[in-house]
């Protein structure tokens, strides 16, 4: 015979009769809800006991007994289904029941809402969400297959594991068919209730799998559309559009007929047509068809469609964590994230915190470095200074220039002779004769000779300038400098690469250390000088501070105050002291909250930044041997071309020099030069 419980007092019930001559001893309290409390069971770690606060109605007791009788392994797998009822004594009233323990699961809202998902399920991409929806559909399928219904479908009754496994909790509210009797579900959440049931009391309502299918479709939509409710859109009519009303009036905000019902999807949400037609149609059928046929998609239809959807996903090519239907032309998440500034999925992060992760497996720095050094630098070579080898024959002066030149020379001689004669005749006036000769001489000379000479001089200058330019080009392109510069750059890259992981660690630590500083900064920024009581600070001072951008305690620093007029000397010093003291008291009052961890998004960003940097360097180093070989080839090519050009230019310069020298030989050069100078 089983032992009677130690005590009949309700508050200290710790042993309960669980049928079949078994007693259950309650362990630690796990949670307390509105209906009852959940305890561990000593010796049965996989199960927990729910004990009701209030005595149960006979109906509820019968329902629990019926559920326990119909506890099927297929149901235990997907639901916290009652397996045994608990009584104070073998024939006492039912006080609670035993159910499988649901451990390590999270409420489904923490999966479909992006903000919590990024923390609780950081690895979950869209494929994970589709898979969770698929598992949810299969849970509904299992429940419906045994003639039961969930009834009160709502996010509070569904939990998800890190493997996207889904479980239903609070199962004692399900609608249960025990074969001889149907126990109804007396509760519901209007936001998740089918249109035909809106405004009807849940009590006494007979639910069907089709009613459940509405709630299932809603949850699937939440999972696939970043936590959006399909009936929460922008209402273009007057007043508010509560969700219950929107459901009742089939105002599916994302549907193809939404505009006709004055609804619009909220901004920056995934459009329904981003999904393949097969899945989009299921949503349309679930949310917009008021006619009895075609009925809402069943749990089975959802499961099959979602399985297919998950097989046909494509990964975004931009290195994000985005997955999307393969039929889409472009990644819809990229567009949404760009337009909204929100981040829907945690960017992929390799565990970049260890050396092995930073140094990519396929990338071996030493091997690649050997290949880089394997490219021999071009042989250092001095720039040649070619001289014209062949004898240069100057371009002869045209006949007419020669004759004019001789004629000019004759005229000069004549003038010279005349001056000599005149000087001999009247030596006293020699200065007058000379003066006269100089005045007359230019008018006797023909300028075509001078022009020819000028032309040849310019040609020489041009040749010399071109030579200098060629030499500069040679120094720039034909020496081994470009090669050496590139090699130097590669050295720097290699060092940078080796330091990457240390740098990342340093930045991560800095992020951690900054946490307190950032909290303090935020705290100080919340304290405005404007509203604070600071002794000695008058309204005019506040205005002066404000116009210098000093508005909050965070802005108050000795350096910043120095620049504000009226805060320099005498009373100003006191004001500065008062402000700094104010800041100090605030800082003392600040309480650092260590629970506020570094934002995982910031860490992910940092890691992504480093990963990008690492990949960039790897790519550059991998391409380096080829690049060096190309640079070398280019140098040699330039060298050959420029050397030829140098020889040609040297010839040209020599020619120009010889052409000009011709004039010097005529003997008129002295005069011409002198003339040029005048």
């Amino acid at each position: 015979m089983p032992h009677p419980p130690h005590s009949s007092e309700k508050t200290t019930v710790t042993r309960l009769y669980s049928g079949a001559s078994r007693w259950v001893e309650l362990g630690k309290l796990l949670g307390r809800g509105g209906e009852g409390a959940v305890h561990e069971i000593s010796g049965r770690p996989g199960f927990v006991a729910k004990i009701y606060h209030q005595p149960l109605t006979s109906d509820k007791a019968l329902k629990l007994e019926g559920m326990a009788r119909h506890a099927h392994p297929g149901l235990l797998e997907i639901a916290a289904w009652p397996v045994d009822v608990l009584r104070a004594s073998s024939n006492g009233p039912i006080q609670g029941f035993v159910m499988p323990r649901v451990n390590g699961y999270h409420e489904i809202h923490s999966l479909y809402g992006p903000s919590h998902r990024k923390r609780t399920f950081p690895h979950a991409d869209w494929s994970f969400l589709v898979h969770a929806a698929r598992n949810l559909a299969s849970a509904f399928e299992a429940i419906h297959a045994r003639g039961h219904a969930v009834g009160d479908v709502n996010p509070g009754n569904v939990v998800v594991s890190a493997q996207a496994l889904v479980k239903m909790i609070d199962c004692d509210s399900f609608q249960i068919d025990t074969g001889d009797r149907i126990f109804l579900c007396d509760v519901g959440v209007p936001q998740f209730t089918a249109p035909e049931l809106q405004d009807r009391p849940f009590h006494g309502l007979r639910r069907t799998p089709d009613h459940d299918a509405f709630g299932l479709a809603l949850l699937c939509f939440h999972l696939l559309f970043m936590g959006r409710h399909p009936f929460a859109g922008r209402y273009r009519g007057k007043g508010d559009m509560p969700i219950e009303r929107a459901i009742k009036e089939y105002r599916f905000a994302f549907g193809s007929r939404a505009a006709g019902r004055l609804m619009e999807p909220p901004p920056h949400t995934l459009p329904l047509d981003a999904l393949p037609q097969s899945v989009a149609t299921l949503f349309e059928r679930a949310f917009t068809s008021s006619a009895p046929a075609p009925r809402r998609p069943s749990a089975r239809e959802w499961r099959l469609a979602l399985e297919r959807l998950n097989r046909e996903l494509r990964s975004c090519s931009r290195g994000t964590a985005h997955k999307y239907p393969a039929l889409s032309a472009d990644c819809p998440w990229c567009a949404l994230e760009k337009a909204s500034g929100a981040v829907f999925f945690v960017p992929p992060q390799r565990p970049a915190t260890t050396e092995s992760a930073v140094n990519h497996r396929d990338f071996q720095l030493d091997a690649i470095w050997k290949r880089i050094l394997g490219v021999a630098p071009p042989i250092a070579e001095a720039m040649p200074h070619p001289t014209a080898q062949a004898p240069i024959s100057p371009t002869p002066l045209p006949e007419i220039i020669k004759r004019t030149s001789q004629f000019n020379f004759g005229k000069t001689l004549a003038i010279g002779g005349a001056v000599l004669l005149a000087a001999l005749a009247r030596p006293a006036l020699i200065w007058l004769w000379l003066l006269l000769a100089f005045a007359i001489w230019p008018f006797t000379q023909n300028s075509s000779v001078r022009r020819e000479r000028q032309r040849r001089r310019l040609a020489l200058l041009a040749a010399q300038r071109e030579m200098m330019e060629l030499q500069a080009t040679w120094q720039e392109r034909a020496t081994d400098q470009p090669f050496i510069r590139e090699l130097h750059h590669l050295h720097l890259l290699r060092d940078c690469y080796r330091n990457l992981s240390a740098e990342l660690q340093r930045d991560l630590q800095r992020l951690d250390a900054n946490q307190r500083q950032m909290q303090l900064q935020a705290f100080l920024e919340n304290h405005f000088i404007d509203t604070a009581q600071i002794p000695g600070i008058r309204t005019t001072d506040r205005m002066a501070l404000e116009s210098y951008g000093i508005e909050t305690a965070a802005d108050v620093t000795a350096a910043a105050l120095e620049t504000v007029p009226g805060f320099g000397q005498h009373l100003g010093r006191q004001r500065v002291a008062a402000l700094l003291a104010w800041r100090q008291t605030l800082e003392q009052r600040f309480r650092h909250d260590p629970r506020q961890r570094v934002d995982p998004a910031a860490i992910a960003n940092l890691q992504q930044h480093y990963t990008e940097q690492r990949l960039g360097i790897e790519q550059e180093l991998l391409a380096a041997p080829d690049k060096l070989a190309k640079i070398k080839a280019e140098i040699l090519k330039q060298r050959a071309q420029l050397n030829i050009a140098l020889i040609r230019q040297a010839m040209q310069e020599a020619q120009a020099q010889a052409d000009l020298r011709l004039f010097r030989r005529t003997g008129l050069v002295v005069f011409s030069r002198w003339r040029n100078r005048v």
Partner: protein
Amino acid sequence: MNQPDLSHQTPFGVDFSVAEFADNPEPRCPCVLLLDNSWSMNGSPINELNEGLATFKEELLADSLAAKRVEIALVSFGPVQVVNEFQTAEHFTPPHLSAQKDTPMGLAIMKGLELLHQRKALYREHGIPFFRPWVFLITDGTPTDEWKSAANEIRKGEESRAFAFFAVGVEGANLDILQQISIRQPLRLRGLRFRELFQWLSNSMRSISRSVPGMDVPLNNPTSPDGWASV
């Protein structure tokens, strides 16, 4: 009817609320706190109030869904100042209020309702469902400004179920005027049980945030013998 096509002000570019609502599209449960920090609150009342605010955040954070849904705006008066614009409980930083000047309650109420109005417009624009907002006034004095029009706005808002207004009087509050301002019976805080008050408030906000927009939620009676208030 035929209004000339007047130019309207338009907000600049992409506002931060886009990312905010995309990241967290949960229905919102807005709560405006109108807190008296007039000089008469100086000493332990204001300290207890600050402690209570810290409790408020902690309690809300304990519930992950409420943390995403409950949004808090805080207006202090004496003088009127928006201490916190609407922020979800997750991001709300409890301020440290200090006792300052007078009690411009009328202006504070108007400011709080204006914040609420703007926030609701934002919800509608972003397709975010919301619960009936709560406006929660705590004072220890008599309004030092014109409060009749504020009372009028509150009556209109309550009638259209645009929000629920609650008034709590600390020792020394003029409950006669509070009675004229609030449709609901104003409550008197027992002693300085601010912490209990905010625990009750967070519990209420939690049960509302777990309920359904538009439905009435049964709340714990704060005037029970061990509650924080008396009528």
